[in-house]
């Protein structure tokens, strides 16, 4: 019997097979691939050509400090560095103590510190030493945390709790401490202002958000409908109108003989009132995920309603909404860019004032792309860190 000659099977591994499977599997995929390649070429070629030849990136290099901290007094710059060093220390400590949970953020912080140091070197500025110092502090505290292990847990937690009020005090200063003079908030600007608004907006809105979420689930009709009304009202109007309201109406609401709060403070109040409605919905989601059995078990153990809430239900609910809270951090970080409309000097507004400088006229693309990259990079890094933390803690999926 003559041997039947069989053709060898088609390749199923290797680059050719990959191309066939992923790009040219059917006739319409072939068409789509060619359309895609044409589109990519049509978009990327002018973009790359522009960014390498025409673009005047000098506008960014020349105004980098302005973009980062705005008009913050240059002789008080050490305060900003101190907040960065403290952040590095806390991240290092958390990494050492909590291992996996903080590893994503630690990698991001180390990488960012190194990248900024390189940028500093390229721009011939001496900030590179500070960034490397921040990295060194992070690594040193990692070693400390590692040797403390579980005993360091409470120290680290207290550290984080103290950190946010502390940096606020540090950046704002106070007239009661001679070596820490008050810095007017009208001088805050750039990325510094954006981050301060994000942190204050998020942390400040959480207590109000929890109260509103509890109120919305309350059995008492008046409290319930008041909470629903507040949440739906705020969620039904744009953030700009709330900022506008905070900016114009807040001074009217205060007693006539009281000092008027400044612009940044008014914006913060607006952001907190706005974000509280969204935080309330996040927390409500967490509360709904708690099994009835938990309430009943707590009652059976003789806990009162308040104790059941604070000891049993809320801790579990808040743990369940960690991913949602991270998400709202990212989205508030984006939303703070709207304070430019009511006249605060965040990155965007700084960008517009840079564009008004006579030597940098017409560099709109460069400036807006830079702002774009800052927001994108920060959000990407933050999302990466928080996802690693969620995975390590095993929250958000059961």
């Amino acid at each position, binding site marked *: 019997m003559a041997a039947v000659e069989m053709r060898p099977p088609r390749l199923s591994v290797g680059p050719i097979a990959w191309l066939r499977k992923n790009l040219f599997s059917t006739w319409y995929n072939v068409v789509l691939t060619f359309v895609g390649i044409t589109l990519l070429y049509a978009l990327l070629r002018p973009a790359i050509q522009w960014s390498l030849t025409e673009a005047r990136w000098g506008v960014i290099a020349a105004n980098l400090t302005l973009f980062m901290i705005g008009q913050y007094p240059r002789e008080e710059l050490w305060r900003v560095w101190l907040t960065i060093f403290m952040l590095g220390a806390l991240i290092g400590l958390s990494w050492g103590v909590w291992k996996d949970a903080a590893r994503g953020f630690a990698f991001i912080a180390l990488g960012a510190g190194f990248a900024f140091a390189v940028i500093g070197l390229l721009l011939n500025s001496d900030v590179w030493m500070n960034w490397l110092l921040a990295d060194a502090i992070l690594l040193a505290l990692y070693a400390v945390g590692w040797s403390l292990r579980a005993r360091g847990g409470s120290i680290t937690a207290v550290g984080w709790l103290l950190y946010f009020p502390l940096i606020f005090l540090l950046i704002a200063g106070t007239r009661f401490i001679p070596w820490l003079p008050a810095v007017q908030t009208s001088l805050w600007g750039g990325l510094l202002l954006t981050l301060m608004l994000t942190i204050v907006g998020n942390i400040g809105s959480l207590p109000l958000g929890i109260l509103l979420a509890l109120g919305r689930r309350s*059995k008492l009709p008046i*409290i319930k409908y008041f909470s629903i009304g507040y949440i739906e009202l705020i969620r039904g109007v744009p953030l*700009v109108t709330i900022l506008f309201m905070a900016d114009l109406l807040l001074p009217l609401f205060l007693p006539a003989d009281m000092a008027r709060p400044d612009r940044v403070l008014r914006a913060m109040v607006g952001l907190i009132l706005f974000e509280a409605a969204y935080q309330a919905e996040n927390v409500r989601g967490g509360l709904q995920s708690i099994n009835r059995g938990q309430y009943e078990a707590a009652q059976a153990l003789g806990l009162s309603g308040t104790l059941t809430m604070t000891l049993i239900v809320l801790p579990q609910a808040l743990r369940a909404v960690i991913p949602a809270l991270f998400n709202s951090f990212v989205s508030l970080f984006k939303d703070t860019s709207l304070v430019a409309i009511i006249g605060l000097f965040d990155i965007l507004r700084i960008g517009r004032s840079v564009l008004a400088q006579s030597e940098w006229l017409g560099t709109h693309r460069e400036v807006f792309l830079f702002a774009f990259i800052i927001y994108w990079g920060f959000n990407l890094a933050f999302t990466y860190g928080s996802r690693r933390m969620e995975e390590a803690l095993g929250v958000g999926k059961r």
Partner: protein
Amino acid sequence: MQITAFWRNVRFLQALGQVAFVLIIALAAGFLYANVSTNLTRQGLTVGYDFLNNPASFDIGEANIPYQASDSYGRAILVGLVNTLVVSILGIIFTTIVGVIAGIARLSSNWLISRFAIAYVGVIRNTPLIIQLMFWYFGIILQLPAVKEAVALPGPIYLTRRGVYMPWFEAQPTFDSWRIYIWVALASIVLIWLIFRWNYNRSSLPIPLWWNLAYLLAPVLILWIGMILQPQPPLLENIPVLTGLNFKGGLRLTPEFAALLFGLVVYTGAFIAEIVRAGIQAISRGQLEAARSLGLSTAQALRLIVFPQALRVIIPPMTSQYLNLAKNSSLAIAIGYPDLFSIAGTVANQTGAVVEVILIMMLSYLSMSLFTSLLMNIYNSRVRLVER
């Protein structure tokens, strides 16, 4: 029988709590009200809506309803509201198309196409809309060539720094007498829908698919009859032509409107893409496989089994994206499109009637939101799973 003392009675305590809450809120409101009125008197302002009748005496760049500077403040705010509505409605239509295409593209088996969609969604969702708007407006549209060297796209659509010019229809003198045919054509669609529903209620058999062609054929037939009776067409295509220094004819979109619409569509489309993707992925593969094994073709299985179920997952988050688009249109102020927020801001500035203007603004946005939610809730209850 033991009677609980009234101060330990749960119902009494609950009532007391609520009364206390109301008292606190009332006190706070009274305190704030007193402050506002003292502050306003001190500034020499009075609260009232009379200012709405005063002449606005400022110009508005583009108005979708007739407006001139001598019109009242009330009219100016109305112009802003209409502008907001126009950009929101157009935006919702286009963003749905973009979002659905991008969401399906993300699930494409073609590696390049799905990477495209992932990059689009990832970049757009992680950056603020206001920066995107400013980039489109200052960085792209205002950097386009002047009218003489306009970028011509097929259509013909011309892109220039003075706006986008595209063909449009122009009403002819016969348009008025044509209205009757248009109304009858519209009425025929409703009538067919009613007949189909009546038939379904009577026999509870679904209508054959090709009967749906009636929706298309009836209006076309009616308009065709109109064409025979009145040979002059009601609308003529009007193509923009470069005459002298500017384009004549066609439809001109201002740079502000074009940038705002484009920015809103691109931004919201990225969020809708994620919703569509999640909705389709939420339907287990088993549904498709079961439908195929029952003898349905892939197209039938997608249309009859997968999409109706995916729609249930998609509609509620889609509603909130539509609301977000309408609310985000208030960022128009950053690029100078005269929407509700920017005109109301100008009015508040000129008249000092801050409280009243903010109230009008909030109520307008709130009623827009509530109306959209209402429509989407009605639609949602139609596609919702019917449970016992």
